[in-house]
Each structure stands twice: as C-alpha cells, then as structure tokens.
C-alpha cells in the first residue's frame, strides 16, 4: 500500500467511523475502492479504529461479500439458488469453468474474469441466472455462455 492509498483508506475510516455499523461499512467501502481487502489494509483499519486485527479479519471472513484476494477485471456471479439449481445452474457453472479454465473463487491468467457463486440473486423467475459486473442475465443456456462473455473480452483488446 502506498501513501496515497493509505490516505484514501484513512478518509474512508474517518467518513464512516461514527456510523453504528462502522466496521462493516468501512470494509464495504474499502472493497469498493480497492476491489479487495488486503491484509495490510485490514491491519490499517484495525489500527485506525483501535480494535484488534482479528476482529476486523473475523468480520471480513464471515460475510461472503468480501474478497480477500484481488478479483479479475470482470466478476461473474453464478446464482446457485434453489430455482437455479433445479434448472441447471450447476451446469452453467461447469460450462463457465470449462470455458475460462478456472475454478470458483479464482481469476483467469489474463486477469480478465473471476468466477464467484452466490446463494440467490433474487431473479428466480428467470432461472438460471448469472450476473456479470452487476448486470443480470436471465434464462442462460449452456450454449450461450461463451457468447455472453464476448463483449467483456472485446473491451480489453
């Protein structure tokens, strides 16, 4: 972490420290800023708040929202809710893993995509569903998976 990043972090801490749910809120904002929570940043937050590192680390590992390692440029969330499960969400996940050659929680070598699973995106009426960078795609079919990724590849090239 360089000085300017530290400064940004301090700003986040100062902005939210008075909130009732300060710890979670600060971690959320930190992740939005830096894409993930590094050990260093969590230590910094703990110090700034005057609490133990374990407490911050404990919160970060408890909630599925937090990444502890850097994600890819595009994050693909595969919904594995009940409706998606019964309509073949697992197969969509498999297809994605096959297409990208990475496992859940990993990032492709080119740093472009990472795959995550989510317990329900709340779009059960359109199952199976995946979400790429917050944009939801419904009624996904196995054959359509690689097509969905195309636009995200092009941006980079």
């Amino acid at each position: 972490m360089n000085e300017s990043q530290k400064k940004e972090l301090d700003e986040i801490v100062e902005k939210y420290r008075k909130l009732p749910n300060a710890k979670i809120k600060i971690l959320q904002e930190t992740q939005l800023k830096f894409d993930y929570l590094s050990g260093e940043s969590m230590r910094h937050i703990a110090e700034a708040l005057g609490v133990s590192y374990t407490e911050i680390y404990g919160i970060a590992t408890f909630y599925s929202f937090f990444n502890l390692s850097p994600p890819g440029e595009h994050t693909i969330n595969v919904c594995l809710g009940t409706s998606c499960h019964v309509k073949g969400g697992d197969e969509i996940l498999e297809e994605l893993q096959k297409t990208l050659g990475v496992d859940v929680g990993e990032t492709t070598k080119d740093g472009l995509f990472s795959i995550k699973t989510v317990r329900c995106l709340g779009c059960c009426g359109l199952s199976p569903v995946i979400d790429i960078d917050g944009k939801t795609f419904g009624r996904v079919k196995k054959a359509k998976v690689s097509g969905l990724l195309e636009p995200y590849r092009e941006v980079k090239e």
Partner: protein
Amino acid sequence: MSVREMKELEDIASRGAKKIKPEKPMLVFGAGTCGVASGCGDLIDFAREYLKSKGIENEVILTSVGCNGMCHAEPLVDVKLPGRVRLTYSSVDVDKLKRIIDEHLLGGQPVREFALAQLTEDPSPLPYGRVDGDDPYEGIPSYKDLPFLAGQRRIVLRNCGIIDPEDMEQYIARGGYRAAFKALHEMSPETVIDEVKAAGLRGRGGAGFPTGLKWELCRKEKSDEKYVICNADEGDPGAYMNRAEIEGDPHSLIEGMIIGAYAMGATHGFIYVRAEYPLAIARLKKAIAQASEHGLLGKNIMGTDFSFDIRIVEGAGAFVCGEETALMASIEGRRGEPRPRPPFPAQSGLWGKPSNINNVETWFNVPVIIELGPKWFSSIGREKSKGTKVFSLVGKINRAGLVEIPFGTRLKEVIYGIGGGVQNGKGFKAVQTGGPSGGCIPTDKLDTPIDYEGLTAIGSILGSGGMVVMDEDNCMVDVAKYFLSFTSDESCGQCVPCRVGITRAKEITERISKGMGRKEDIALLEDLARQINRDSLCGLGQTAPNPILTTIKYFRNEYEEHIEKHRCEASVCASLFSAPCENTCPAGTNVYGYIQLIVEKRFDEAYELNKEDNPMPAVIGRICEHTCELRCNRGKLDEPIAIRELKRYCADKTIAAGKHATAKMLDDVGRKVAIIGGGPSGLSAAYFLRRMGYDITVFERMHELGGLLRYAVPEYRLPRSVLDREIDDLLALGIRAKTDCRVGSDVSINALINDYDAVYVSIGCQKNRNLDIEGEGLPNVYSGLNLLERINTGTLPDLGKEVIVLGGGNVAIDGARSLRRLGHSVTIAYRRTEEDMPAYKEEIRAAKDEGINFEFLLVPEKIVDRGNGTLGAIFRKMRTEEYRVDGKLAITPTESTVELKCNSVVAAIGQELDVSQAFSEKNTIGKNNLIQVDEQQRCLFSPKVFAGGEAVTGPKSAIEAIAQGKKAAENIDVLLSGGERYERLRALREEIKYRMEEPHNEERMKRETPIELSVPERHDNFREVVKVLDDEKAVREARRCLRCDLAGGE
C-alpha cells in the same frame, strides 16, 4: 415542504393521479430487476431514440414501474392512451416495440397479436388513484381473465407494476400516507396495536408470530430509545418477493414502519437489505429522501410531536443474518452470529435496547389494515392466518412469477391454476416451500390449503414465500444434498449440532448420491436430523434438517434405489449412470454406443449393439414412447437427439441390405423354459434366455406371435413385414413356438411346471374394460382391441359410415385413424379435456390432421338403437372443476345431455388383465386385479413360475414390456445357473467397440425430422406414415450426440 394537514396530502395526491392517468399517451416499462435482466433497458433506449427520430419525444411520456409479478412474460410494456384503459404487451422486443409505438401509441389501434391483457379492474383494495374506469378495448382479455391472475388477490402488491416507484406523488395518489396520517393524528399507539392485533396479522418472514402481540411486548418495555427494524435480508434461495416489493413500491414499507414505530414508541428505524439487491437499495434511498423532504420522516412528522428516522444497512452476505439476533449483531457492525433467546429483542435487542423486527411484507400490510380496518383485513384468509401472502412461484413451472393469494388457497390451485403446471409437459414431482428451512411436498399433498399451520403439518413451512417446483428430472437425494451443502456453508459455526451435525448429514447424502450409501443411512439421517433440530442454537440449525426429513418421508423409495440399486432414476447423480438416455430407457439400451456407430457409418454393428439390449429395434424404433429423448442433455442446448429415428434408421438400413444381426450366443445348457404369451415381453424373455443357452418354447393362443404388436398396432405405424422380420430372426436362434395353443385349456399350467425347469407368464392385458352402460350389448358396439384385431386380421364387419370412438388413449386413436383410412367418418368422444388425453401427443395431432373429429367432456350414458342401422349415443355433458392433485382438471356432470348419431360405437376406454385367462392357482391375482409377483418376479404359488409384462404392471409401453422380459430372463437365470450365464451374456455386450472421443459439437444444430406422408397420401391405405431418415440426415443427426457417457463420468 412539509405535509402537516390532510389537505396538503390530497394536493399531492391529485398531482400524482395526473401522472397515473396523464393527458398525453404514455409508454410504461416494467423495470424491476427481472425486467432489466430481460432487456427492458435496451427497450427504453430504443423507444427514446425512436421517438426522438420522429421528433415527438415531448408528446409522449415514458415511465418505468416495478415488477407486477409476471416474470414469465417479461419484458412487459404497457400503453396508456388518454381516456383508454391501460394495456399490457408481453415478451416485447425491439421489433415488437416499434410496431406498438407506431400502431398503438401513435395510431390508437392496439397490436392485438402481442397484447397480453388490459387493466380493466384495478387490483388495489383502496379507492384512491385508481387506474381503471377508462374505455376498454374490445376483444382483448382483461387482467382478471388471465389464469395467472385469476386466483390472486393483491393487497401487498397493489401498487407494484402500476406506479412509478421513484415518484412519491404517485404513491400518495394511490392513498399513500393516509394511514400514517390517520394513525398519528387520530389514533393512540394502543389503538394502533389493538387494530393490528384484531386484524390477525402474523409475521410474514416465516415463523408467523402475531405482529400485534410482538408490538405490544415492545411497547410495554420502558426505555429511552427503541428501534424498529425491517428484515429485508431475503436469504432463502428461490425467494424474491421482498426484492420485488421494495423495487415496486418502497413507500409502502416506509409508511408501515412509521406506523409501527409510532405504536411502539420507537425513534429510529433500520432497514437491513441484502447488498445483492442494488436496485432495491437505490429506490429505498430515494424514497426515504423524498419522505424526509416532505416531513413524513424526521422530526415532528406530519406536524405531530412524533419523530422517527430510517437508516438503510446493507447486508454483506450471510444467510444466518435472517435470524433476528444475528441480524442485530450485523447492524451493530459485528459478525452476524445469533445468540440464545431469552432475552428476546423486545426486551434487549439492538445495543441492548428494546427492538422489534418485522419482515418487509409484514410492514407492507400495516397501512392497509389501518386504512380499511381490522374487520376488512380479517375477512380474508383462514381462521388462524389472515390476509394474503406473496409467493415466488419458480422452478420448472410454466408461468413463473410473484403470486399473491389469500391464505387458504390450495397448493394445487397455485401450481396448476396460476402457474399453469410443469414446464415441457413433464411430470410434477415436488414443490419446495420455505427454502433451506422448508420441505419438499409431494403430489398427494397438493390438496393442502396454504397457511402457517397447514404447511407445518405436512413437514414443511410457509417460510418467507419461496415456492420452487420440481419435476421428474429432479432427484430428491440431490435436493436434500443441495440444501445441506447450502446450510453447512451458511452455518455460522458457533454451535456443535449445526456446524458438525449438518456437515455429517451432508456427507451421508453425498455418499448416497455416489452409490456408496449404506442400508442404515436412512435411519441415521433421520436420527441426526431430529437431534440437530432439537439441540441447535438458532433457527438456522433447528430447521436445516427439514429438507432431509421431508424428502425421506415422501421420497424414501428414491433413497432406497440409490442405496440398494445404485440407481438415480432422475439421471442427476452423475456417479450412478453413464448417460441419461441409457439410464432412462427401461431396457437400458446403449444409446450413445449405437449413435456413435452411426457416426462411424458402421450401421450393421449399430443394429447389433442395439440388439444386445432389445430384441426388436426396428419395431421399437417406430412405436417407442421414447422417454429417453425427454431426458437428453442435448435438449438443454437446443433440441434432444432424435433417438427413436436413429434406432429405426440403423435397423432399417441393415434389414434393407438383406443382412441379419448376428446375435452372440452361449453354449447350450440343456435346461428348458416355457414362456406363456408371445407378445413383446414373452419374446424378449425368450430371446435373452435362448442366447444364454436355454431351450425355449413359447406358447401363444393366437395364430401368430407378436401379441398386441401384431393384433393392435395398425399397419401404418408398424408394417407387418418389419414385425415378421424381427420375429423370424428370433425364431432363427432356435426358439420353438406353439401357436394356437391356450395354456389352461390346451395344456395345463401344472404340466408346464412339471415338464420345464422354469415358466414365464406374460399374457398381457387383453381384455377391454367394459362401459357398464345400457346398450353396450347392441350389435355394432365394439371394443377397441377387438376392433383393431379385426382390422389387422381382415375380418372387419360392416360398421356403416359414421363411427364414434369412446376413449382418449392410444388404442382409441389407433382405432379412429384406422377406420378413417377405411373410409369411415370418425368422432372421438373423450370424457376429459384434450390436455388430459393419455395418448401420445404426436398421434393426437396426426388424427386431427387426418380429419378425425374430437368431442371433449362427454361421458357415455346410454346407447340406443334408433332403427335403420342408426345408433344414438347419449352422453352426459361434463364441466371442469378445480384441479386435482395430479394436475388434471376434475370433472363433474352437468344437467344437460347430448345425443350423437352414428352407425357404430367403439369403446376403447382401457384394458385389463383377463382374469379368467390366468390360472386358478392360489394367490395368482393381487388386489389390483393383476398377477402378483415378488421382487424377483416370482409368482407366489410356485418358485419356478415367473411373471412379467402388462399382466403384472398393467397397460404400459412396448419397451417397458421388453424390459420386463429381459429382467425375467435374468431372474430365471439366477434360479437356473446362479446368474452366471447372464453375467457372461452381458460381458459380450462390451465386444462391440466404438470411438471414445469427446465430440466437441456444442454449436447449435437443428434436430433432423423424418419425412411423413402428406395427409392426402394417407387416404384409403395403410402405408407407413413416417419414413426413415435418409443417410445424410441420419449421420448428421448422430453427430449431434454429446456423448454424455464420456463427459459426465468422474
């Protein structure tokens, strides 16, 4: 500006009402999350550009609304012209939208072919800002006529899909904040609580605790600060009611919380929302800002001395935070771990202060109760469950979406009526309610009225309202495994029963799904489940065993099949089968093997490989019900492989070349087996036993072998030459046949038992079920099988011109289509509706093409002779009632009858075992009037006598009968050689080798279809209707196979 008086509220309302019914044409987009995911964003962009290009962007209003629940019809677009009623279009794309804009929005004429329905009746129970009352369009259904909406009653969702959720004025126009105004200005907190209590409102989060009572407990606590909390951490996978509610109508939530806070004396409110719901959060933020701006939140609300504010807390993703103590821990910024109760939140909640938590939907109900009174509210629903409940009806359902129904509606009405039944015509298996805390409800419990107590009584829970429909392709062991892996992931990890217990239970289901389960596992799971439920700290652990308990209770046979037979019938548990087609085929045909051989153009070997499992591929390739195709994985990609056509192709190809498949045989063993009945089941047993080296004699009462294949299936579906050819091939293996020989009269069963080492009885179901009505004995009243037999043997008497066929099965259709070919004019009369006809759908379609007339909902009452060779068939007209648990519409008689004139009547209403033809030995016939056998297919009266086929199973498909014969061959071999020969025969199956490479053929490819005779060509002849695939098509079709046997295995 601050709202202080009713007048000011009404001023805003009148402004809002003008936006709901504007003076300019308005285009309304459904822009909930599901609408956006279906592409409504692109539609809005297009509309904006398009209107701009026409230079009329200011003449037309574009607006967005939340979800109206019809997710299956997204994207939805409404058109509202001044003075005309609002009209909804479904599944809109850019091309459709262009026409809608041109023709309707600008031209004033609705585009009828895309129109879904018009909003002629406002669903809201409140009298304010209604959208109905304008001129309707003629000939377009109304919302209430849509089956999806007909059974619904909308209180919670009254504004969803109607108002712009980001515009508070529209909410106020619809009666919004009147209830809060009334409560704060005219009612004491105690009266508010009394009204909520009297209304009988119970928590909509799942547990169903009386809301009024909960408020009262919190009210009674003395404290300087109290909190009200809204639980919007909708965690149940498969549930999204709360998301849609907030997205569609955020102010309802805020108003409910204001009233609740006033009643309990709370000063601060929190809404805990999942971070996965960004749109809901954005709309809530906007709504809170608007409300604060107008003095509806903050200090001195609406000019009273009551102050209250609301903060949004974003959850960071932990299912356990749905538990109230965990949720409070999370709001406090800690790990969301639950704690023991007592103390209850009402005494010591958030930061130790008295707190009250209610679900989003509970809050939504509050303003309506205050506005319309408890008496009105409690008139809806059942004794203990008042009002309505919103469900997310999803999974394998035709009309998925949000459904709001009054308590007491039965499950079957929701699934079949509102939801339109299971997708793709598949069979219903279970509906899962209550998410990971709920259970799987089977068909025979679909009569249950939906309320808190009703669902609990059958082992599930109401939960927050997820309702996931599962069909025959879903494996219940897999479902239990899914939920356990979910709850074991989401367990907070504090207490032992939940953290360790669920993990152990998950491991047990995992090993069962891999075929490594042990006999005692079911009991172990039940025991473990009971204890986890009793000993866990919080609701997550206590309810996590419900999916195990209900799947075991209602689907124990699936567990047993996995454990004992290592079989997953639904083709889900990948370790237990190589490909779904093979797993689904009753005879276990190696489908991918022969398809691969077709790809390699080794057609003879393909036929040979087919014959390893099925003695008559050419026959089955024509008439099979092909359940394999329903399960084909290619169907998930584009369309299933045409398996039946390929089977027929390789058979026909070999036969046309004059070749015979060389069946591999074992050496003769010198033991004798008698087979009674030469239908598909008997022939199949004979075939496999002969190949194992046994000496076989088939006894057949008719003149020729083949059973129903010969005497019932018409020539145009199965040419006799094909049947003869495959039967001749069987006989060529050295099988002896004694035809015209009836066991019982020509030879006694005891003689066979004495003379042979084993006997297989497969006498089929040959007797027509009687009509049991007056006039059944008249001349020219025939039974279905009898008629087909006469047609097939050329002994048909004169029936006259007009024939009525009674029944809806394949025999009825076969009879009708045959008679049509003979120049008769034919009417099929069936007692139910067309959807409920048991005949194959393609046969019904063909019958219609050929000009057969169908009459439905007619039950025959009497047949009378009207003289001159005319018969009068008198029918009672039926009408459909509610759905039965199996998804068929129940029928009841009406007052009226109808008489159809004809010259002959054919009754094809089903077949049964001719009990008089079976033997009189003790215990031959079971309770269902079929031959009863034990698990090894042995008749109870002799260990040497086996039985199978339709005489045991009742009427089923030909492939089922063949599978029964094959199974019998195995069982008889177990008796005679300890099963050793069967094993050796199976090993021969492996001798035909084919390529084992993954095909990489996942690009879209169209399914090949065979050519059929045109309808005129079918007239007055029995030529085969469906032709075989040509070479090119067949190979192309075979190349589509995904070779699941290679990909799926571990």
